[in-house]
């Protein structure tokens, strides 16, 4: 009977144990920093893609939202995932709390699964917070720059949230890689190093490699650059990301459980 509640209790414990840590700060500050960065660029450079739409009286919000998610997906997301999973697992590695968790009367699968769900939720919250900052920055920009007046138009909140969810799903396979590395290695360096390699390699391979559509680090960028499927949640890069992510996660879960020395 109690079995079904293990996961809920552990998730609750996860949320309390990361209080006053970098996890919650990063969750708010990283999207804020990116939104602010894009705001400054928009305010100063006034991209013609946006100003032309405004001049013609067409709604610029969709383009405005796409620009934001492109910057987020291409520039930051893989490194953010690497950093976040590193910070989340680092807390357990540094304090050597695995042995405490594994000696408690709770199933071992739920210890790992609750941590996985927690880190995924943190990433989802990050993107939802980012959606909020995208919306806010649009209105602030309307006040600071009359040529970039987005306020009179409908803010396309639904599309904004769709993009957030889309980007979240497109990064599942990158998360699966870093979740595995963060769990297996106590050194933060592996995760960040791999993240850097991933970002750079995706940036190079996306220029024309035939099989880039199967490359996990390219999924978020391909997702937001795909003009045809931009309004579809389950466009091709997202579906590939979910399949590759599910396979990698299953292997990582098996890998953690097969080990003789558990903690």
């Amino acid at each position, binding site marked *: 009977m109690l079995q079904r509640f293990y996961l809920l209790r552990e998730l609750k414990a996860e949320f309390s144990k990361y209080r006053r840590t970098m996890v919650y700060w990063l969750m708010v500050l990283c999207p804020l920093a990116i939104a602010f960065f894009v705001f400054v660029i928009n305010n100063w450079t006034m991209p013609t893609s946006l100003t032309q739409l405004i001049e013609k009286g067409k709604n610029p919000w969709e383009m405005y939202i796409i620009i934001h998610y492109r910057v987020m997906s291409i520039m930051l997301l893989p490194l953010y995932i690497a950093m976040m999973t590193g910070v989340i697992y680092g807390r357990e590695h540094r304090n050597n709390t695995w042995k405490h968790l594994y000696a*408690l009367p709770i199933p071992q699968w739920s210890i790992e699964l609750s941590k996985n769900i927690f880190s995924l939720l943190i990433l989802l919250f990050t993107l939802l917070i980012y959606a909020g900052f995208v919306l806010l920055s649009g209105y602030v920009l309307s006040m600071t720059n009359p040529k970039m007046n987005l306020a009179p138009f409908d803010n396309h909140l639904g599309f904004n949230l769709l993009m957030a969810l889309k980007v979240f799903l497109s990064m599942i396979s990158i998360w699966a890689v870093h979740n595995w590395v963060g769990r297996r290695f106590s050194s933060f360096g592996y995760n960040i190093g791999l993240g850097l390699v991933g970002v750079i390699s995706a940036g190079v391979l996306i220029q024309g490699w035939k099989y880039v559509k199967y490359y996990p680090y390219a999924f978020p960028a391909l997702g937001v650059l795909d003009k045809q499927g931009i309004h579809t949640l389950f466009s091709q890069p997202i579906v590939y990301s979910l399949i590759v992510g599910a396979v990698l996660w299953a292997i990582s879960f098996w890998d953690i459980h097969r080990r003789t020395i558990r903690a």
Partner: protein
Amino acid sequence: MRDYIIETHQLNFSFGKFKVLHDLDLRVPQSSIYGFLGPNGAGKTTTIRILLGLIKSAPNKISVFGKDLIKHRVEVLRQVGALVEMPSLYLHLSGRKNLEITRTLIGNISKNRIDEVLEIVGLTKDAHRKVKQYSLGMKQRLGLALSFLADPDLLILDEPTNGLDPNGIKEIRELIISLNRDFNKTIFVSSHLLSEVEKVATHVGIIHKGKLHFEGSIDELRDQQRPTTLIEVNNSAKAIEVLQAQNIAAASVQNGTLKIEANDKPMIHQINSSLLNAGLEVYQLSPQQSSLEDLFMNITQTAQN
């Protein structure tokens, strides 16, 4: 009433090709304080980690509360509290918050229980402070509080006094005795210091190089003590030869002082005469009550040889 809380049956474990445990048969009686003794690297921590399921083992090798650990892990651990090596604590959180997290994880523990365990370990006043501000002794006490938060019947403590000053060691020792005496907990405590175990344990298991060399009550261990006599002479090498001619082996030789396993008067007289007859100068013949420390050294050194 069950006789043994923990039983292992021919427990073996290897790290790659290096065999750490050899056919370990442990029997930990209910309501005992079982001192699990052995020098560093003897296999104590590995045994404890296996007993807690932190290291995978084969089924039907470990029985805790009469149940197979592998098949009934969660059920068994519900009655077990543990402190393995240094306590595992979230340093950025307060002592109370650490306890609250474990309470949430285990479930079915009343909120008042946190105040109770803080009181028992003497951390009520410091409960609000971040653990990173705690001294090692306080961390160790908080680790103990975590181990019996769920009011388990069995506590497994791995070197709980490691790194503590004499005052801290005394506090932990008193806590262990009180948990056993006042709360009827069975306590399995490992240590490499016999002097520490001797002060708290009712039963002892001595492990060396992964093999169990002694298991029994502390009285049974004391029964194994053999009386000895200390002999101080001017030439210990020659004295050894004289004794060997009479088939008496020196248990130890240190700075011209020999120790032999005998203290009956006729024999001492005979030894004294033979040493004098051999032209040696005898300065001291002193009967000794050998300590448990000697016995421990003897057991582990014999095993080494």
